[in-house]
C-alpha cells in the first residue's frame, strides 16, 4: 500500500514537473512567428512600398493578437514592423505581407483580388490547398503547422522566394513550364 502511494506521488510529481516545463504554443502563435520569418526569405520588387514593414491580417483575430504580442521582439530587414487589421480594400495600401485567415473564400474574395494585383506576399489558411491565390498556404500536418508555396503566385506578385524557404515547405507548386526551375533558384 505504502509503495503504491509512493509510486502515485512520484508519478504526480513527475507530471507536475513536465507541466511546468512545457511551453505550450497555440497554432495561432506559430503561424504569427512564421509570418515574421517569411519576410527574411522573400525579396520584394523595387516598387514595393517603402516605410515601415506592414503585415496585414483579415479574418483571424487570434493570429492578429499573436502578431501584436510578438511585434516588440521582431524587426524585418532592420525596419520597424506594423501589424494592421484589414476590412476594406483601401487598408491594403502600403502592405507587404497579407495574411487571410481560414473561413470561406466568399468573405475575402474582393480583398484577395486586390492583393493579387500588387507586390504583396499573400498568405492563406485555406483547407483546399493553394488554389485561393496565396503565395504561401498554411497546412495542418498532425500537431505541426506546415506550409506550401506556389511559385506561380510568387511570379504573379513579382516576389523572389529564397530556396531555403522552399526546402522547408511541405509542398511546392512549380511553374507549369519548367519543373527544374527550383534548381535554378538554388
Amino acid at each position, binding site marked *: 500500500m505504502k509503495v503504491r502511494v509512493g509510486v502515485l506521488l512520484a508519478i504526480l510529481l513527475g507530471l507536475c514537473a513536465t507541466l511546468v516545463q512545457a511551453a*505550450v504554443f497555440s497554432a495561432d502563435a506559430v503561424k504569427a512567428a512564421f509570418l515574421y520569418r517569411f519576410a527574411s526569405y522573400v525579396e520584394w520588387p523595387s516598387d514595393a512600398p517603402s516605410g515601415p514593414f506592414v503585415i496585414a491580417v483579415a479574418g483571424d483575430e487570434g493570429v492578429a493578437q499573436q502578431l501584436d504580442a510578438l511585434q516588440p521582439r521582431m524587426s524585418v530587414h532592420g525596419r520597424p514592423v506594423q501589424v494592421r487589421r484589414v476590412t476594406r480594400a483601401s487598408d491594403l495600401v502600403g502592405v507587404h505581407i497579407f495574411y487571410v485567415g481560414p473561413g470561406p473564400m466568399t468573405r475575402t474574395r474582393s480583398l484577395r483580388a486586390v492583393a493579387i494585383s500588387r507586390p504583396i506576399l499573400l498568405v492563406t489558411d485555406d483547407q483546399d490547398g493553394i488554389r485561393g491565390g496565396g503565395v504561401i498556404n498554411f497546412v495542418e500536418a498532425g500537431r*505541426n503547422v506546415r506550409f506550401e508555396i506556389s511559385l506561380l503566385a510568387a511570379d504573379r506578385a513579382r516576389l523572389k522566394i529564397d530556396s531555403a524557404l522552399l526546402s522547408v515547405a511541405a509542398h511546392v507548386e512549380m511553374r507549369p513550364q519548367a519543373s527544374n526551375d527550383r534548381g535554378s533558384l538554388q
Partner: protein
Amino acid sequence: MMANATDPLTQLSRMSLEELSKVEVTSVSKSAQGLNAAPASIYVITSEEIHRSGVLTIPEALRLAPNLQIEQINSQEYQISARGFGGHLEVQNFSNKILILIDGRSVYNPLFSGVAYDAQDVVMDDIDRIEVISGPGATLWGSNAMNGVINIITKNSQDTTGTLLRASAGDQETALTARYGGTFGEDNAIRIYAKGFDRGPSELVNGDSAGDRWHKVQTGFRSDLGGAGDPNRFTVQGDYQNVTENAGAFGDVGFDQFDVLGRWEHSSERVSTRLQLYFDRTERDQPPSGVGFTLNTCDLDFQQTLGLGARHHLVWGLGRRYNDYDIVNTPTLFFVPDSRTLELTNVFAQDTISLSDHFKLTAGLKFEENSYSGWSTLPDLRVAWSPNDRTLVWASGARAVRAPTPLDVDVRESADGVNVFLQGNPQFDTEKVDAYEIGYRAQPHTSISWSVAAYYDEYDDLRTIEPAPGTFVPLHWGNLMEGSTYGFELWANWQATSWWRLSPGYRYLHENLEFSPGASQLLGVEQAGNDPVSRATLKSSMDFGRWSVDAMLRYVGKLPSPENPSYTELGARVAWRASDAFELSVNGSNLLDDRHSEYAVPTAREIRRSIYAEVRWTF
C-alpha cells in the same frame, strides 16, 4: 521588462523555420477572451466550447459561463440570473434583471418581465459565440440590462456552407437537426435548417414522472449578402417554431413563435452605420386555468460608429420598439386592459477617449422612455488601463433599471373569481440600480489567463407587496425595498499541456436588502430573489488524437428561502472523430445523482440524470 529566454514568446521569436515546423501546437479550444475586449466582466462561450460540452439547449450552454447562476425548474423552465435577483416564483417574481438577445433581437418577455427559455432555440452548431456580460449594460442595451446581458450571436451564413446532420438519442432526449448552407453570386450565402426534439419529463421526489414531457419543431434561415471589404452588407434571417408541452394535470400548453430580422451595415473610411428591423410574434395557448396571449414585437434600431480624430471613438444611436399584445383573461388571473401597445423609445451616445496609449475613458448616456413610467436616464462611465498587451485593469460606475410590465401595472388576481386579492399598481416605478465595479484581466504566460471582477451595487424601488389602507385586500405592488449587494466573479484558463486545458470559475454574492420606510414588510426581503452565495465550476478539456474527453463539475450553494440544499453535479462527453466529417459521442448530464433539485417551490421538479449518444455528420 523585456522577457528572458524562457519566456515562450521570446522562444518562439528566436526559432528558425525548421524549428517552427516542428513545434507541437495545441488543438484544445482556444479562448476567445481578448484582452482588448470591453472593460466589463465579460465571459465569452465559444462555439467550440458549446460543441465540446455536448449541450443541446441555450440554458444548458449558459451553465458554461462562470458569471451566471442557472436553476432548472422542470423539463421546460429555467431561471437564469447574474449578480443575484434570480426570482422568487412563489411571489410571481421572475429573474427579470437580465437581458437576453439572439442576433440583436431581444427575447425578454415584456408582459411578465423575464425570459421564457422554452421558446429560445437555435441550431447549436450555428452559434458563433455567446457573450455573457455580468453587471449593467443599460447605456448600450437599454432597460432590463440591469445585472447582465447575454448576447447569442450566430455564425455568418458564409461560415456555414455544406450540410450538417446531427441525431441524438438517449433516455431523456431524442433530437434531429439538419442544416444546409450554400453560396450564390459573388459574396453571398444562405443557410436553412430544421430541427426537432422530444424531451422527457422531470421527476417527482418519489421518482415518478412529473408529466412535463414536451416537443418542438423549428425551422429557419439566414442569408448574408456581401463579404468583408464590401461597403454594404445585408443580413436577413428568420425562424418559426411550434411547441407542445405537457403540463401534468393542467393539460397541454402549445405555442407558435415566428421572427424575421433584416440588417444593413455600411462601412466607409471613418464611419460605420447599422440599421436593423425585426418582427417577432408569439401566440401562446394555455389550458383553461392559464393565461394565453398573442404578442407582436416590432423593433427598429439605428447605430453609427465614428472615428473622430485619433483620440475619439463615438457610437450613437436611436431605436423604437412596439409591443402589441392581447391577453386571454381568466376569472382568476386577468389584466385590465387585456390588450395594449407598449412603446419603448431610446437615444444614446457613447464616446471612448484614448487619453494615452495605455489609458482609455468611456462615457455614455442613454435616455429611454417606456409607456408606463416615462423617461429613464441611464449613464455609464468606465476607465481602462492597459500597461501592456497582456494586462487590463478597469473600473466603472453605471445606472440601470428594470421597466414596469403589465404584470406590475394591469394585473388582477382572484381566488374565487369574484373578489380581487391582488391588483397592479398604475404608479409602479422602475426598479433601479447604481452599480460600481472594478476588474482585472491578465495573461501572465501564454498558457495561463485569468479574470476577476468585484462589484458593489445599490438598489432602490425594488418591488414589494402592499396592503390596501384599512381593508388589507386587495393587495397591490409597491416599490418599497432597497439595499445593496456585493460580490466577485473570477475565472481562469490553464493550458496545462498541449492536449489538456483546465478552466476553474467561481462567483460569490452577498445580498443586504431592507424595506423602505412605510413598507408593509409582507413576505420578507427574500421575495427579491432566492440566490445562492456561491457557485463554483471546473471544466476540463482533453484531446487524444481522434478522441476528446470533456467534463464540467459544478457546485451550487444552498438557496436560502425556500431552502434548496447545495448540490454538486457533473456533465461529461467522450467523442470520437472518425474523420473530419463524422463524429460519434456519448454525453451525460447531472451524472452524480439519480435526481436532484435546483429550486424548491411546489411547482419545481427534480432534475434527473440523463445520457444520450449522438452522431454528427458534415459534408
